């Protein structure tokens, strides 16, 4: 991005500097920033919350400096106070929150600043990129309008100039056809594009400090890779300091210069990216690093064997991926033959076909991973397998039982043989039922267990997912995300199903909790020996658990094969792209992967 592209009258008369043309006047407190200047000086920052009649420490003793052009990552699990400590910088704590200590932005004290001076700083000097672009953008206004609004709030600027600048910003964040997108509403854009709009809006006033609060958590891996690439490019062009708040070590490895690790509201480790990744000193940091699934870590030995023949089934042209040949004598736990699945029509909305001619076979005791971006139809397949969605073409059978055209009444015995673990443990448990009752419900309905018998089984199930028995009387909202997901697993396993569908069971969890849940899942799978369709967008997780992987895109399977082959020798171009996009928690390796990914993308373009 250059300095003086379309020169507006204002910039011609006034000062113009920085990386965008035609910026308006800034307040006196703001002097120019050069790379390497300290822009943010935080000293002993603490955030407290008023809870239940007392102050509760959300974060204490934060001390750091941020230089212009530098990326500081604040890492920790949810509840560690990383977001709140950053939000306190711009005075966006909830009403029961309070910040103390000192944070100076180029000499201006931020803590305790309110009213007009704070408003001048927000957006203008400090901008925030929020986690969820869909909720952070107002659905009633066009994307262009929202950028223009920010510009015109902070600068004296005519509508035409503002629009020109907004388009320039949209070009800066690489939105295709900015003139068209300018008039689009947020819901008309994809998740990645929305996040780009958010970034454009955040950059519109050339902030000195950019706070990115989990900017890619809500996005797919491939989109995440693009956004990270964009942010990396922007670092070069923009003189702002960036605070990156995340729990994903892969993202940190990709971006950060320096890292602060937070736990229980306290900084446990603070150092350069290299230090933290290569020589973590604090046990918590080590544990956090160990908890991140590392792509390729589980297939390294097998890949050494160069004589191995790659045998993945790849989609060619319009023909669907053929069914994996299996043992004739074995009744597959799940068998889909050219199955197409539709979301039934609702009112005037026509039926939507989310999966086309899928051939998939899961043998008893086998774990098959299903990966793809959101909207690719993975969940659709999972839901069809438990008869929540109808199969309109082809055949679907579970443990030898054909359920393609099963009626409602026929499904009851079938329900005993499948279980499903849902993505979001918060929403898949009835908030008004104690979790013990939730776990026991399938037993109550199918085996007609009552009273003592039921209670014994529930306790046994709680034991098997390693939760204390006393927890059975708790309500879901009293449990943490990891515990809720354990409850979800216990419930799914209560009837000892032959087939378990795990629909992104860990995507809503923190990395460290995810590691525990996955471990538990592996143990249970070995113990009970159920067949499993493990749906996830995270290849590293799938690689850890499954023997075979099916890759899905736009409702079609594109590649099916053994895990080793898929991870080490992907044949389909899409699989390669998906693999290249997964960030790895190691800065050096990540740099290599990044170059590889750029090369793949360059190939695709050329």
């Amino acid at each position, binding site marked *: 991005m250059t300095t003086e592209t379309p020169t507006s009258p204002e910039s011609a008369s006034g000062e113009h500097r920085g990386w965008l043309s035609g910026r308006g006047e800034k307040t006196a407190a703001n002097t120019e920033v050069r790379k390497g200047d300290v822009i943010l000086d935080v000293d002993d920052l603490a955030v407290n919350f008023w809870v239940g009649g007392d102050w509760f420490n959300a974060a204490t003793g934060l001390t750091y400096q941020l230089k212009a052009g530098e990326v500081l990552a604040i890492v920790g699990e949810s*509840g560690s106070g990383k977001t709140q400590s950053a939000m306190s910088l711009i005075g966006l704590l909830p009403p029961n929150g309070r910040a103390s200590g000192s944070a100076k932005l180029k000499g201006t004290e931020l803590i305790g600043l309110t009213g007009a001076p704070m408003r001048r700083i927000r957006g203008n000097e400090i901008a925030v990129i929020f986690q969820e672009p869909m909720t952070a953008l107002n659905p009633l206004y066009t994307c262009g309008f929202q950028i223009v609004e920010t510009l015109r709030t902070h600068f004296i600027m005519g509508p035409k100039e503002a629009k020109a600048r907004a388009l320039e910003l949209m070009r800066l964040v690489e939105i295709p056809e900015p003139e068209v997108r300018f008039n689009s509403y947020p819901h008309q854009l994809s998740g990645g594009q929305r996040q780009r709009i958010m970034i454009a809006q955040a950059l519109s006033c050339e902030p000195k400090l950019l706070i990115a609060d989990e900017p890619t958590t809500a996005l797919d891996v491939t989109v995440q890779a693009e956004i990270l690439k964009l942010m990396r490019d922007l670092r070069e062009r923009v003189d702002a300091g960036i605070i990156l708040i995340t729990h994903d070590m892969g993202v940190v490895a990709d971006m950060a210069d320096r890292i602060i690790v937070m736990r229980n509201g306290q900084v446990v480790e603070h150092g350069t990216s290299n230090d933290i990744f290569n020589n973590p000193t604090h046990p918590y940091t080590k544990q956090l690093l160990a908890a991140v699934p590392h792509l390729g870590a589980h297939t390294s030995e097998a890949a050494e064997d160069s004589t191995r023949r790659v045998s993945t089934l790849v989609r060619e042209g319009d023909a669907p991926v053929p069914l994996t040949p299996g043992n004739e004598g074995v009744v597959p736990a799940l068998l889909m033959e050219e199955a197409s699945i539709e979301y039934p029509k609702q009112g005037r909305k026509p039926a939507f076909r989310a999966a086309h001619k899928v051939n998939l076979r899961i043998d008893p005791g086998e774990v098959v991973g299903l990966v793809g971006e959101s909207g690719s139809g993975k969940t659709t397949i999972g839901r069809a397998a438990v008869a*929540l969605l109808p199969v309109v073409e082809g055949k679907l059978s579970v443990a030898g039982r054909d359920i393609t055209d099963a009626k409602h009444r026929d499904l009851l015995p079938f329900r005993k043989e499948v279980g499903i673990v849902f993505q979001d443990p918060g929403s898949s448990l009835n908030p008004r039922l104690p979790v013990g009752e939730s776990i026991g419900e399938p037993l109550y309905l199918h085996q007609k267990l009552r009273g003592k018998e039921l209670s014994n089984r529930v306790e046994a199930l709680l034991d098997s997912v390693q939760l204390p028995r006393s927890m059975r009387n708790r309500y879901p909202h009293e449990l943490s995300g990891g515990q809720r997901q354990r409850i979800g697993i216990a419930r799914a396993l209560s009837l000892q199903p032959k087939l378990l569908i795990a629909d992104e069971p860990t995507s809503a969890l923190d990395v460290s909790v995810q590691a525990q849940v996955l471990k538990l899942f592996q143990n249970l799978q070995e113990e009970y020996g159920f067949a499993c369709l493990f749906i996830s967008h995270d290849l590293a997780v799938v690689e850890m658990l499954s023997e075979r992987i099916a890759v899905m895109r736009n409702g079609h399977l594109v590649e099916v094969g053994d895990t080793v082959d898929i991870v080490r020798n992907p044949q389909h171009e899409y699989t390669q792209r998906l693999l290249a996009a997964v960030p790895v928690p190691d800065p050096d390796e990540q740099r290599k992967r990044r170059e590889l990914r750029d090369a793949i993308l360059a190939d695709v373009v050329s």
Partner: protein
Amino acid sequence: MSNNDNEQFDLNELEDRRGQGGLGDSTVQGTTEAADAIDGHLEHDPAEAVGRGEGVGEAIEVEGLSQGKIVLRRFVRHIGALFGLATIIIIALLSFLTMGIGGIDGLWHVQDPNSTPPVVNGGRPTLGLPTWLGGDGFQIGPYPFGQNTIGNDNFAQVMTGIQTSLIVMFVLGVVVLLIGTTIGSLSGYYRGKLDNVLMRFTDLVITLPVIVLGAVLGKMIYTLPTKWGWSDETKALIQRWMPVELALALGLILWPGLARLVRSEFLSLREREFVDSARVAGATNFRIITKHILPNTMGVIVVNITLLMSASVVLETALSFLGFGINYPSISLGGLISANQSAFDTRPWLFWWPGIFIILLALSVNFIGDGLRDAFDPRTKRVPSQRKLDRAAHRAHMDTRTTTATASGLGGN
């Protein structure tokens, strides 16, 4: 999962988060560590390597409490609602103790509000204010609220009127609850054709004007039995049960509001994963509706019903005032005001007392409804007063050890 679902979920989540002061999921602190420790994942000092876990802060407040207890606790914090509850209990006790209930006589010396004892003291109230309030010393006397020209005891009449209002309120609440919830949940759960039919029927009922219906019903109850030649006893019975009949009739046309609310709740709840989860577990539709979805709509239903009940007090009064609702021999507060409005200049007490009790009843039920709404809505977050904050800050300053102890207690290590 389709995009739509994702968005819906995220919106919910955001709202939740906002409600919880942005501190993540509300979870219980101590148990997180228990689970963490059980996993045996820790290679180093467990205290060092384990984080505080997801969702802290708010957790302390909800530890070990069921939804009902939380609601109760938030309700109790609402001063207005408590006042309302106390007022309505006192009024109900007063009215039932003095005038009796059903066939049982009360304690008041005039048990038939339509009897005409001789007029004492020109019908002026015998209720005396205590001297410190500027009266002639406290006393109740035989006719504390006064008498009208023919000698009816105003106190007995007002107390009977209160009973009528309470009965109307209660019956109407039950009728609306039954019809509204059933129709709302069926149409929200099954959608499609059934939804269409039920909702168009609801639209039809909404168009019925309440006042006209009350008027027609009021007239019919007097004319129809005569026309059909029913016996006098039946007619007397019908007239005696007039309040209940009116309440039934009002309930039969006032349910659409609740039905629509319940329907919209069902529409969003049926898409939640716990419903799918129940379906996969093999639950029948009936079980899903009653066991899984209905309890989750309790908040909306309770709040709506309470507010409707308070409106019904005023509505019944208005109808009776216009002469459409409850007429002689039944007594209602609105009827009393209507009958005594001409005496406003000469005997204002006949007018004031029913009015005061109408206001008290409607206000207190309304306050209860308001308190319930706040209690059920997780988004209403009580922000501590400045005084409390200062005091806590002072406390922390005076004794830092307490704070650190609490903090480490929360850290749980």
